[in-house]
């Protein structure tokens, strides 16, 4: 948190090192979020690039209200939404094309994990956009419901409800696939 405040301060003064450090620190978290959201690696890369180019363009006037990760996560969700809308793409989850980094130690566990992960990603892709965003930001972005509510411009209660609906749907889908 403290490092982030310094990084933002340095970036606001034009520091390339700060920009690099922020990218290295959060690229994986952001990329995970955006891949989960749009289900397409190339589109996710474009979104990640948009966010960091915009961050650089905003240097000098960046004001972080809560925390840097939340700020960037909010930004990438907006980008993903815009990109998907602009390109009128149907979100699907070509999971085979994605590189899963999770590597459990045992081959059987690997199989189970990949199967579960794959099923989860497909289930997430089937959620309505708002519920999908809330679920991903909460579970993968580690954002609070207050932050998510702010990002989606809804009440905290609505963010909670969307999350609850998302979890219920995911539970049904994963049970149906006999994965939980």
């Amino acid at each position: 948190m403290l490092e982030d405040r310094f990084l933002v301060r340095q970036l606001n003064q034009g520091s390339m090192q700060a920009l690099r450090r922020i990218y290295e620190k959060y690229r994986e978290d952001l990329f995970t979020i955006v891949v989960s959201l749009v289900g397409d690696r190339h589109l996710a890369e474009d979104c990640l690039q948009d966010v960091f180019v915009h961050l650089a363009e905003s240097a000098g006037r960046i004001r972080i209200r809560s925390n840097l990760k939340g700020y960037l996560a909010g930004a990438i969700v907006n980008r993903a939404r815009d990109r998907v809308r602009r390109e009128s793409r149907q979100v699907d989850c070509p999971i085979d094309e994605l590189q899963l980094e999770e590597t459990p130690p045992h081959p059987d566990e690997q199989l189970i994990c990949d199967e579960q992960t794959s099923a989860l990603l497909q289930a997430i892709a089937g959620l309505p956009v708002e519920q999908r965003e809330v679920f991903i930001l909460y579970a993968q972005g580690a954002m609070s419901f207050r932050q998510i509510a702010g990002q989606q411009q809804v009440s905290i209660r609505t963010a909670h409800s969307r999350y609850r609906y998302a979890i219920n749907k995911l539970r049904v889908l994963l049970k149906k696939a006999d994965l939980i």
Partner: protein
Amino acid sequence: MRTSKHIEQLAGNIHFRPDEKTDERILAQAEAALGKRTFPDTKPEKMRIIIMRNPIIRIAVAAVVVIACVIGLSLWRATGSGITLADVLARVEQVKSFSCKGSFTMNGQIAPGKPYQFETLFSIVLSQEYGYKSKAETQDPNGGTMAFGEIYVSPQKKTFIQIKHTSKKYVRGGLDDAEAQQYQKEFSHYGNPGALLKEIMACKYENLGRSTIDGFGVEGFRTTDPNCKLPLGWSAFKDPQIDVKVWIDVKTRLPIRFEYLISSLNQRGNTLSQRFVVHDFEWDVPVTAAEFEPPPVPDGYAVLDNLPGMEDEETAIQGLKRCIEFFGNYIDTVGDDAGALGAVVSALEKSETPAALRLKEEIKGLTGEETFKRVSDAGKPILRLMWFYVGLVQQKKDPAYYGKTVTPKDADKVLMRWKVSDSEYRVIFGDLHAETVTADALAELEKLLPE
């Protein structure tokens, strides 16, 4: 495990990473975008805040302001004795450098039977040409004194450094041209002498006649007007008693000693006081550039991370949260950071929130000095909230704070606000959520506030 938790965990275990080529491409694009940006020179104001808000510099500033104020008196009044303050003014205006020593002492009672005293001894050298340096010492719990901190400001090199020995931290920074020039311009009028002069003009004072200090013949002046204030902050003092004395060397016609005492009783009848004494003035003391060279930062010192001037909205919210923890409500005012500790102590005495009771229990076995430190640490977020607010005032961001009437239950009432653009304000509401609203919307929201 509950299925919802299991699903969250599954999702949390998913990780995707861009490949190296993508990393390179994105970074190249972002760096190119950053390279095209031009940066408004906002740093100087920030640095100025850091310098001006620094406690040690403030003491020095107060010393210089006092001199300016004493001088200012002469513009309107002669003393009726052998010394005219107009003469003092003329002489001080010729001064190119001076040094002085002094002390700043706070006394109070943090809880019944728990007196504390905190004293800082300082020495200052100011040169119109080379800059400013100060060193401060404080009491060592093991006896004697220990180095507290050092500050060096060089308008020539446009740099400053502050080293805090007690916490083994330091901060280094730059001044821009305007700030360096301003520093030199304000050499003899650092602070806001205009405002202070007006305050003094409104005060009644008396001539104390002749006396002797350290073998020097002096003539003294005194005011006990409670309206006489220095830029050290007195918000913790309600209906304070003031005693200000200035002594002028009858031979050199220059100030030789200054004393400022402010005290008041809190609601429980305990006395709080602050005493500020400046002495051992040496005028036009010979100085060299080498004297203003800062020493190397000792090994193992870390960069200071919470200086005044580095606060943001989150800092303010954390300070407000701490107010709720300690007092069950918000403090009445945030506009006077220097009185923060006194305000915290005073409010803490009355408070019976669990956090306040815990802290009071915790300090029961501590000495006065240990208690002072513990309470200072606990009250730091509130102090930083005040730094943030004072920074907004200095940056002319039209801030306002309504802690006197707004409570943590008032989710739709404006607790604090400041301007973020020509047409927008950032607002922290009573329940501590924050929103950006238009100026029109803010006007409507502020109509809802109690008188």
